[in-house]
C-alpha cells in the first residue's frame, strides 16, 4: 500500500501535468478558458489516476500503462515546445 501511495501519487501527478499541458497545445480555446479548464481538470485527473493505482493488484501494472502514456505525452509537449509542431 505504501508503494501505491508514494509512487502512485508521484507518477499520477507527472502524468496529469503532462496531459494538461497537451491540452494547452491541442485545445483551440482562449488562454483564460484553458487556464480554468486546466486548473479544474488537473485535480480531477490526478485524483482519478491515484484511485486507478489503488484498484490494481500491483503498482507495476499501473506503471506499465502510465509510463508509456507519460513518455508519449511528454514527447508531444516537447515537439510543440521546440517548434517541431508549429
Amino acid at each position, binding site marked *: 500500500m505504501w508503494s501505491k501511495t508514494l509512487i502512485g501519487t508521484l507518477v499520477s501527478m507527472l502524468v496529469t501535468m503532462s496531459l494538461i499541458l497537451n491540452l494547452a497545445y491541442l485545445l483551440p480555446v482562449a488562454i483564460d478558458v484553458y487556464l480554468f479548464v486546466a*486548473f479544474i481538470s488537473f485535480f480531477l485527473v490526478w485524483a482519478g489516476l491515484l484511485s486507478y493505482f489503488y*484498484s490494481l493488484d500491483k503498482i507495476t501494472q499501473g506503471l506499465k500503462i502510465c509510463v508509456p502514456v507519460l513518455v508519449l505525452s511528454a514527447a508531444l509537449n516537447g515537439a510543440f515546445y521546440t517548434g517541431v509542431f508549429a
Partner: protein
Amino acid sequence: MKAQTLRNLVDGHGWIGLFISIPLFIVFWAGSITFFQPEVYRWASTVHFPVAEGKTEVKVDALIDRKLAQYNVDKSSRIFITYPSEYSPYLRLGFYAFAPSTDASKAGQDKPRAKYTALLIDPNSGETLTDQRPFELSDFFYRLHYNLKLPQGDYVVGFITLFFMMLLMTGLVIQLKNLIKHFFLYRADRNTRYKMNDLHNVVGVVTLPYGLMFALTGLMFNLNIIAQLPTVAVLYKGDINAAFKDAGTNRINPEFLDKPQAMPSLDKLVAELEQQEQVDITGITLYNYGDKSAVIRFRGQLEHSFANHYARYYEVDKGQFPAELNSADDNVFANGTRLLYRMHFADFAGVDVRFIFFILGLGVCAMIVAGNVLWLVKRQKRNATPKTISIMRALTLGGCAGVIPATALSFLLERSLPLELSMRGDMIEYGFGIGLFIAVIAAFRYQEQNSLLRHYALSGAMLFAITAILDWVLFAPALLYLIEQGSFAALSVNIALLLVSFALAWFSYKLTAKAPAETEQEKPVKGSELSQQN
C-alpha cells in the same frame, strides 16, 4: 467490475481513510465552525466594543494621516483599509510599522523588520479601540481549517484533501451498484458493524456533491502551485506576472522612489466609483503611501452580481485609472475560480444556506468517525493486533470526539480572558491544543468507550454553558445595547452555545441510560454483501 478490483479499492479506501481520518476530521470540524466566522468574530468583539452601525458615513481622509502619524509606519509597504461590513462593524486599518526608535531610512540588509499592526477603529468617532488584535478565535478556526496550524500546513492539508478526493472517487465506485437501491438504507436493528457501514454509506452518498465541491475547491486553494507549475514553467517560460495577467489578476509592486507626493481624497474617489460603476467598495489598499510612486487599489463587490468582484488601480502621480493595470472583468479563469471559491465559503447567501453547509460539514465528520469505527469492528473480528486496535480506538475517540471539549474551552477562553493580556490570541489557540491533547491522553488511558464519550459530552456541555452564562454576567449592558441597535450576532451565538450545551448534556444523559455493551453476535458476511459492507 472484477471482485478483486473491488477488493483492492476497498483496501485502499480503508487504508488511506484511516491514515487521514483525524486531520480530515479536524479540517471539516474547523471548516464547519468557520461558516459562522462573522458571527463568532462579532460575538467575541462587539461586547467589548459595542458600536452603533450605519449611523454615520465612514470617512477615511480625516483619519488616515492622524492614525499613521502615531506609528513609525513603513510607507514602502502596503496599507490596508477595510470598511465596516457583515464580518466586522469596525473600520480596520492595517500597516507595517517599525519600533518607535528605529531609523526606517536604512537600506539593504541593515533595514529593520517592520511588524504588521492592525487597528480597530470606531467608524463613528474615529477612536482607536485596540491595536493588539485580541479577537483571534474565529481566525484561529479558519487557519486550523486550511493549515491545521502546522509548518507548511497548506501543503499538508492540500495532500490530505487530495486523498479525500480519492476516497470520494473510490467510495463512489465501491458503492455504485447500491447507490440507488440502498439509498437511505439504515439497519438500526443490526449490530455496530452494519449500523456504522450504513451510516458511512448513507452520509457519504448524501454529502457526495458537497464533498466533491469542497475537495476540489480545497485543492484549488492549497495545491494551486503544483497545478500551475507546468503551465507557468513551460507555456509562460517562468514569467509569472504574464500568467497572472492572463488569469485576470494584476499583481503590482511599484518601486518606492522616496519623493513626496500629495495624496488624493480617498473618500471622493470611493464616492465617484460607487456612483459611476454600481459597486460597493469594501476596502482600499495603498501602495507606497505619500510617495510619487503611490498606487491605490479599490476593492469591492459589484451590485447584483454573484461572483464578479471588483478591483481598480489608481495611479496617484498620473491621477487616473490606467488601462494597463485594469484588465477586463470578463476573464473566464478569474470569474470561474471566484465562483467556486464563493461556493466553498457559502458567502453567497444568508445564514440559512450557511447552516445547511454547516450540517453537511458535520455530516462528513460523522462519516469519518463511522468509517473508523467500521474499520475497528472489522479488525476486532479478524483478531488484528490489540495494540493497533487500541491506538486507533484512542485516536478516533480522542482526536474526533475530543475536539468538542477543546472547542468549548477555546470559546470559554475567548470570553473570559482580559483584553489587556499579551498573547491573548495565542492563549486561546494553546487552550484548544491542550484540550485536545488531554482528550487524546484520556482516550489512551480509559478503555470504557461510553464512559469516555459521556465525559467528553458533559465537559463540553459545561464549558459551553459557562461561556454562555459569562456572556450575561460580564457583558449584559453591552449585549442589551447591541440588541437595541439591531445587532443580533452576539445574541445568536450566545443562544447557539446554550443549545449546543443542552444537546451535549442530553447526549451524555442518553449514554448514561444506554446498556453498557452491545451483545449481538456478528453475523457471517456474504460475498454479495462485500461492496455494501465497505
